């Protein structure tokens, strides 16, 4: 960390400047390939989306037609868009609290000195690093009419439905899969947060006679605030953008019960070939995520003690 070294050494001497310039050049040299790739495939498209959203963008045409806000006006009257928005909202509201709570509980459990702690940590984390295509296909089998879930339910005399084939249950079933597959990842984040809380605070609380709940409420939770903000923010962004499980398991159906905003955007662009319209929907999704994250920042206030 050259900056740190310089600060320690006091004000920069004139002789340091050419050296710093050379270091900067070297840094840019190493950054260049990554910057090219990121600019081409991430930053460029991100900015470009905001322009495309105002056009009737057609890849088969040389000139593109400027539409002004017409794509947004059309979105405002598109019932499928609002169905997707509603499904996405339900998805976020269902998955984020559940995955956060489950991740916290798992982290609290494996943070204790229990037997086979390493095994449990690995077992909970494996779904997070397993390909979502693989987990989706496994859960398709579990959720099918003659699948594992209905077999278990049948032992209790319950005849389960075709979970993914039913408009009533499909979204909930995919939400449950998502909670299962992401909780392990966030568990690791909470685990790191828990281990960053000084043991002396717990000791002091214990000496003051604080109950386990009081220690959790007044020591653990405040200590986990930055982690909680991180987990909820990533959770919100990830769930707003849910696509792979929907694509693999239900293709937005049945009866659009699992059509989410990301899936709507994908279809509008690559199936219906309306890139401007898809870009407009993507801008709306961006605005929603930005707004929700800002509100969430106000509520959680990660930097507050």
């Amino acid at each position, binding site marked *: 960390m050259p900056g740190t070294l310089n600060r320690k050494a006091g004000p920069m001497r004139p002789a340091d400047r050419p050296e710093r310039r050379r270091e900067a050049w*070297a840094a840019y040299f190493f950054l260049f390939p990554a910057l090219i790739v990121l600019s081409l495939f991430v930053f460029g498209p991100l900015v470009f989306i905001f322009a495309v959203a105002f056009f009737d963008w057609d890849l088969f045409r040389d000139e593109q037609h400027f539409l002004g806000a017409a794509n947004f006006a*059309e979105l405002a009257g598109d019932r499928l868009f609002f169905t997707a928005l509603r499904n996405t909202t339900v998805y976020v509201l269902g998955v984020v609290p559940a995955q956060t709570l489950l991740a916290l509980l798992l982290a609290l459990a494996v943070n204790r000195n229990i037997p086979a702690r390493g095994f449990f940590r690995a077992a909970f984390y494996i779904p997070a690093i397993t390909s979502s295509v693989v987990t989706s296909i496994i859960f398709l089998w579990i959720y099918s009419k003659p699948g594992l879930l209905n077999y278990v339910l049948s032992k209790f005399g319950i005849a389960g439905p075709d979970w993914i084939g039913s408009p009533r249950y499909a979204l909930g079933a995919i939400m449950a899969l998502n909670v299962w597959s992401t909780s392990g990842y966030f568990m690791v984040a909470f685990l790191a947060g828990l281990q960053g809380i000084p043991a002396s605070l717990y000791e002091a609380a214990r000496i003051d006679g604080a109950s386990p709940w009081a220690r959790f409420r007044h020591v653990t939770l405040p200590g986990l605030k930055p982690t909680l903000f991180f987990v909820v923010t990533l959770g919100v962004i990830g769930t707003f953008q849910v696509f792979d499980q929907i694509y693999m398991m239900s293709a937005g159906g049945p009866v659009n019960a699992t059509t989410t905003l990301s899936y709507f955007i994908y279809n509008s662009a*690559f199936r219906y070939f309306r890139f401007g319209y898809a870009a407009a929907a993507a801008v709306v999704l961006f605005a929603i995520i930005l707004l929700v994250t800002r509100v969430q920042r106000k509520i959680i206030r990660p930097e507050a003690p």
Partner: protein
Amino acid sequence: MSRIAPRGTNPAMGIVLFLALFLFGCERQDPGPVRLTGWIASPVEEHLTRTFIDTFEQRHPGLPVRYEPITANYMDKLLLMLATGTAPDVVMIEAFWIPLLADYGVLLPLDGFLARDPGFFPEDFEPALLDAFRSGGALYGLPKDYSTLALYFNPEMFAEAGLADAPKTWDEFAEYARRLTRDADGDGRVDRFGYCHAEAFEYSLPFVWQNRGDYFDAQGRAVFGDPAFAEALGFLQRMKAEGIAVMPSDVGAAWNMDAFGRRLVAMAVSGLWAANFMKETYADTPYRVAPLPVGKQAASVAFVAGYAIPKRTRNPNRAWQLLRYLTGREGGRIWVKSDVGLPARRSVAQEAAIGRDPVKRVFRQSLDHARIWQFRVNQRVLDETESALQAIFLTGAAVRPTLADLKRRVERGGRFHADARHLEPQGRPDASRR
């Protein structure tokens, strides 16, 4: 650091120079192999395609072929490739897409090649199949094979129910389904159903056409609000409500022929490709094939697959050599072994004795009253339609209000009705189109 970036040297310039040299070196001078793409319907078809390419290369030593199959989301990928000029020289295409791609102006008209190639014999194709690749008077592709829809039925189950042959009318169809629905294992619950109806729209459409209904007319107007459309769906919905018909998901099947192969249902509608599926997956399940039961008139739907050449190909003449072989008589003789589709050429069908094959001849005969699976509408209209059908068949939604709602959804602003450009006067695409 100074060893990596010596003073006075600009590393960015070096990178630019390297990229320029690299890209310059990438410029291809020779025409290279003819690139071919297609979807993979079955391992048999994949194997035959490879055999086909080997045979073609032996006969055409100067024309190597590079096969680049697209394993999933074929049209999503092909559309992008066509739009960006990166599509292979010869592309497999379903006739469904011809009107749309012709309007997009991305396919090469083939009329000139045919006029200069007297040995190709285009008149040998089934006329309806060749016409499926025409749009605005030009020919944009050539058919390879096709299949209509017909009724698969289980003769053992029919015999158990005292039925000798397939139903010939809608009334018989419903009555037979009723008699075939039963509790086969005696546990007090119905476990075998008369008919399994596939969710996809193309499986309901023959019933609509048989009822003299339609989906979109020649002018691109939605006509599924007409009573004939609703009556046909109502007929199928009543069979389901009565418990004599099921959807694949009702019985835990992946698709309707999966249910049929597992003996969960006695009848299912499918194409010739299902015969291949039955042979590979459910060889022990007996089946016969009959024309679809007739409503007010006989009707089926025909799916036609063929090949086309993208307009921006670098090697149109070399691509034509491959295309004419793929869709010529010799190519047809190879495809006919696949059992995935029927040959588009009448001479090949005759050689293969399709008329004497108890299964294939039914699909061939159904072509006489079939309409091609082809609409000039945006895919979203079809997706919205499938959603409406799911509501009708999965949730029991009332047919007429659901169709009225569908009409409102797809006609809103004329936007999804068909792409706006298709509704321009004379139906001509933009002049700026490539």
